[in-house]
């Protein structure tokens, strides 16, 4: 019985030792363990596999996948980072830039701004095509000029009071439809995902007048096309208390973990720790 338990632990658990992590690699392949049938069985996989959503907010999705190997989960993570297409600014046509930010720096910053546009509505641009057509390009314009505020108080030194338009935000980018895009996308609202990304700072007399072409691309080509800020995975922890712990030691143990993982139970006057929740909300 103990042999079977340790065999199961070898097959199913990654163990955190004092100096390192053990049992990391997948070993449940056919032939490794006598008495176990480890050949691939789609039906067995489908029965055991499930997805539980832990947290789903505006920009964050956290979910558990139970019954899948790390190799496949890692492949999904790599694909999320590098091979899911998005739209991002690729070419910047600078008509006028008298700001203190150099043209190429400004173009680099504009490229990194995430654009709210469904990439499935567009095609990839053909290689060697410099102009771009309406099926593969989204055009934005950024035209802003900073001027002095005549109504400002004489001694004030607050730039918000002294100048108009001295901070250039991503909300100043406007969509300029190409060709028949107004008919193709009548209700579409193409704009940067966040309105409050600071692009540049201006002073009176400086202006920025640029036209931007967005194309469809993937993260492998340039990181600006990666749709996720980060995608990561970890194995679900399984904590077993091997020795009885009481009273003050129990509270010290509780402090060692993230809040919510260990709860103290009061059994017959003495305090015992018990593992309550493996995935606390905070971590």
């Amino acid at each position, binding site marked *: 019985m103990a042999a079977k338990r340790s065999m199961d632990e070898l097959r199913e658990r990654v163990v955190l030792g004092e100096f390192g992590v053990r049992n990391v690699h997948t070993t449940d392949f056919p032939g490794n363990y006598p008495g176990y049938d480890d050949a*691939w069985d789609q039906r067995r996989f489908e029965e055991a596999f499930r*997805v539980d959503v832990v947290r789903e907010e505006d920009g964050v999705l956290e979910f558990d996948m139970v019954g899948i190997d790390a*190799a496949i989960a*890692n*492949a999904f993570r790599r694909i999320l980072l590098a091979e899911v297409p998005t739209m991002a600014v690729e070419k910047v046509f600078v008509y006028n830039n008298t700001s203190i930010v150099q043209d190429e720096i400004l173009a680099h910053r504009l490229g990194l701004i995430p654009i709210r546009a469904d990439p499935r509505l567009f095609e*990839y641009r053909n*290689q060697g095509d410099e102009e771009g057509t309406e099926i593969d390009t989204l055009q934005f314009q950024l035209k802003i000029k900073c001027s002095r505020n005549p109504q400002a108080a004489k001694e004030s030194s607050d730039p918000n009071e002294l100048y108009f338009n001295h901070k250039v935000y991503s909300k100043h980018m406007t969509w300029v439809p190409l060709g028949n895009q107004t008919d193709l996308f009548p209700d579409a609202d193409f704009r940067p995902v966040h309105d409050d990304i600071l692009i540049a700072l201006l002073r009176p007399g400086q202006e920025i007048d640029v036209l931007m072409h967005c194309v469809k691309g993937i993260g492998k080509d340039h990181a600006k096309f990666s749709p996720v800020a980060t995608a990561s995975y970890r194995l679900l922890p399984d904590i077993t208390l091997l020795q009885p712990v009481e009273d003050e030691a129990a509270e010290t143990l509780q402090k060692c973990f993230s809040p919510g993982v260990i709860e103290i139970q009061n059994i017959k006057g003495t305090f015992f720790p018990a593992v309550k929740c493996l995935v606390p909300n905070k971590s």
Partner: protein
Amino acid sequence: MAESGERKAALEMVQADGTDGNCVTFVLHDEDHTLGNSLRYMVMKNPDVEFCGYCITHPSESKINFRIQTRGSLPAVEPFRKGLNDLMGVCQHVLDTFEVRLLPEELRSFLDQERQRTFDAESLIAFSGILCLTLV
């Protein structure tokens, strides 16, 4: 991916000398650990496979050497094909489960009710079929 001018071969096979097809190295172009590791896992789950491994020849080149050795005289292309098909099956099932899990609450309960109703209809048909057979 965008179409390039000429298409490079995505896959080449290199057979070791002196063997009869059960020991093959596939060279996959434009691939990396994303396909290599997941495909290696699926091919290793095949009991006919004696050895399976992959390596990236040089980090500056995006190609991998994927080697399969089978027991007996099974051609190595078979476990390769089966591994690819199994991987597609896994990904399709994960996608289906994921889509169902992320549907809004009302739509999910509606789908569950639909599933329940079709189950009842199927069991009714099966029962009436058995009834007809016993009567005859």
